[in-house]
Each structure stands twice: as C-alpha cells, then as structure tokens.
C-alpha cells in the first residue's frame, strides 16, 4: 500500500507527538514563550457548562471530563482540517494557474 505524502506526514506527526513526551520529560518548558508565562495550575481548571449548548457544551464536557481525550481530539482535528484545507486551497490555486512542481533553486 502506498501512502500519500499527507497521510505519511500526519502519521509521523502523531507518532512524534506520542513518543516525544516519553523521551523528553519537560520539553514543554521550552514553550514558556519569552519567559513571560509561568506555569500555572496544570489540570485543575474546569469550564462552567451551565449556559452552554450544542458544540460548545460538547467541547467543554470533554475538556472537563477527559483531558487526554481532549488533547487527542484537538491534535487529530487540527491534522485532518489542516490536510483538507490545504487540499482545497491547492485545488483553487491550480484552477487559477498557480500549480507548483519541482523548482530549480535560484539563489
């Protein structure tokens, strides 16, 4: 079975996502952007769902009840949506005549 580049990229990304935390314990400290943000309470914050409905309620419920599931959903949704959107944009750009192929590297 031959995987497309996009599928391969998503698989590699998800693999790296799962494996890296096991290898590097506090890698996330590097994302303390410009040392402005101090780590706050890690898992304790909950969203008040009383005034929420529909998709907002669903997201908030998953967020409150299962943080791991929330993280998996976020990662997978971003991967799939990113792939679909880039595919659609690519189609539009092709229709406009902006198709790309292998380029010569002019410095």
């Amino acid at each position, binding site marked *: 079975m031959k995987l497309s580049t996009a599928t391969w990229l998503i698989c590699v990304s998800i693999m790296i996502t799962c494996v890296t935390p096991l290898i*590097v314990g506090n890698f996330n400290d590097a994302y303390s952007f410009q040392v402005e943000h101090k780590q706050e309470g890690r898992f304790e914050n909950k969203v008040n769902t009383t005034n929420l409905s529909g998709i907002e309620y669903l997201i908030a419920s998953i967020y409150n009840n299962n943080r791991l599931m929330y993280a998996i959903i976020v990662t997978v949704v971003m991967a799939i949506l990113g792939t679909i959107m880039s595919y659609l944009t690519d189609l539009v750009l092709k229709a406009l005549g902006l198709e790309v192929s292998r380029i010569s590297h002019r410095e």
Partner: protein
Amino acid sequence: MNILDIHLPIAGIEFNALLLILIGFCVGVLGGFFGVGGGWIVTPALNIFGFHMAYAIGTDLANIFGQSIGATKKHHKMGNVDWKLGTISIVASIVGLELGSQLIIKLEKIGDVGSVVRWCYLFLMFSLSTLMFVDYFKTKKRRTLRGNPEGADYHERSSLARRLHKINLPPIISLPVSGIERVSLWAVLLVFASTGFLSGFLGVGGGFIRMPALVYLIGVPTAIAVGTDLMSVLASGAYGCFTYAIKGRVEILAAILMLLGSSVGAQIGATAVKYVKGYGIRLLFAIMIAFAGLSIALEQVYKISGILIYQKAAGILLMGTAASLTLIVIVKLIIEYKKEKKKGT
C-alpha cells in the same frame, strides 16, 4: 456585541471570528514563505486582543501544527524538503532544546532571568538581521559586478558553510537534496543542537533561528532551508499542540478558525517561494526579524519604564509588520505569476 463575535468556552472569552481568520491568514503566508511557525506574531497578537498568555501559546501551537502539514506537503512537491537533514535537525534540536530549557530552570532558581533572556533574544534578532542584510547587499553587489543582477540557477555557499564542509570527522554523510556532497554528521548535529539550545533558552519554537542556520552554516539553498525548516516546525507543532491541549491550554474553536485562514495562507506563501529568488527571501526575512526585534525592544522599554504606550506600540509594530510582509509576499506572487504567464503566451 459584534455579529462576528463568538464565545470561546475554554478560554472563557468573546472573540471576533474574522480577526482570528485574518491573524491565521497572515501567519500562514509568512510561515509558508519563510518556513517559520510564526508564534512570535500570533501569541502576542492573541494576547493583545484578550487571550490569556497560556491559551495564546497553546492555541497558536495547535494552529502551527495544522498549517505546517499543508505547507510542508507543498514544499515537498517543489523539491524543497530534505527529509534526511530534517530528521537529523529534529533529533539534534530536541537534545539542544532540553539543554537550553534545563539551563533556564537552573538560572530561574538563582533569580529572575526574564530580562536576561529578552536581551539575548534582542541581540540574536538584531545580529541575525544585520548578517542577512550584509549578505544581501554583498550578493547584490557581486552579481552586479558579474553582470548578473537577476541571479542564476546556482547556489553560492557562505564561507562558514564551506569551512564546515571541510571538517573531516567521521561519519561523513551526503545530503543530495541540498546539494551537499560531503559533510561531517557531527558538524550538522552540533549546528542543530546549538539552534535547539537557543530555542530552549529563549523559549521560542526556533524556526527563525534554524532557517538562517541552514543557509549560512550548513550551506543549504534558501528554498530548501524553508521547506526543511517547516518539517521541523511540523514536528514541534505536533508535540506542542498535544502537550498544551492535555494541560487544557488549547482553545479548540479559536484554533480551528485560525487554521481556516492559516492553511490557505500557508499554501499561498509556499507557492510564492517558487517565484522569489533565494536572496530575496533572505532580505524579507531580515526585514521581518529586524522589526520583530524592534518590537521586543519596545516591550523591554515598557518593562523598564512601565509606560503603557511602549507596549501598545510594540503590538502595533508587530502586527503591522506581519500584515505588510503578507501583502508584499502576495503582491510579489501576483506580479511574478503575471510575468510568467506573459512569457508563456
């Protein structure tokens, strides 16, 4: 309440949906064109408009992950991704990053390192932009003297890269995609470990450090440096997205809206690489980091003086730079495309 305002349940705020899409679009164009994640634009932008810093970082990382999938794919199609070099860069960067973040943790125990880090950040940004400006004008002068101002289909390596290629420490590897016949693996690992260390120390994703390092230290052609760097951005974005989401710091609705803009922008930015010569990309990159550096300098003045106007000026400058560069890239793409079409007919 504006008709475009939406409620973001995780961050607990109202936010303009169009603004999110526009911020995403700008960072997508710049990310696809320069091979960077663009966290230095999105995080402060979201923060200025009301996002808490932790949610701004997490949401931005989720967006970076999504947008870089399409951009990397497009660069791969153009032959701009050196997978071998990219894999080495990810492995070495993780080691460097860990060392850099460990150093920060140790220094934080001694005292407040925020100010020191910001000064280092400033120094790095201005040094990099100066180096790239000097390189641009030297290249332009050299080509004018040769009677070839428009550039050619060859790649002139920096003297640093040529020296690095002479290191004979085994194992020696070749990077055919980047046009490098032989280079010591240790030298390449050292370069990426150093850029990773700087990323960890400064607390940034590191695309703006890696891209020039690929060009000036490893000797990779600019377009390949952009594509290969995007591959590393994709990996760090994937990890950042997951780790921040598990800590509850990703606002998924905001990330989705930003991704709608950024994935379109990233395709446009990546396509523009086809039409702009290497030293043109480097010039725009130098302008971008010079203004970003200026914005950080204003932020630093605010921290010292406490005068709010400096902070506002920093935010406006940053977003103005992002919007202007986005416009430049799009206009350049349209002009060059029209030229190409004209030639074809």
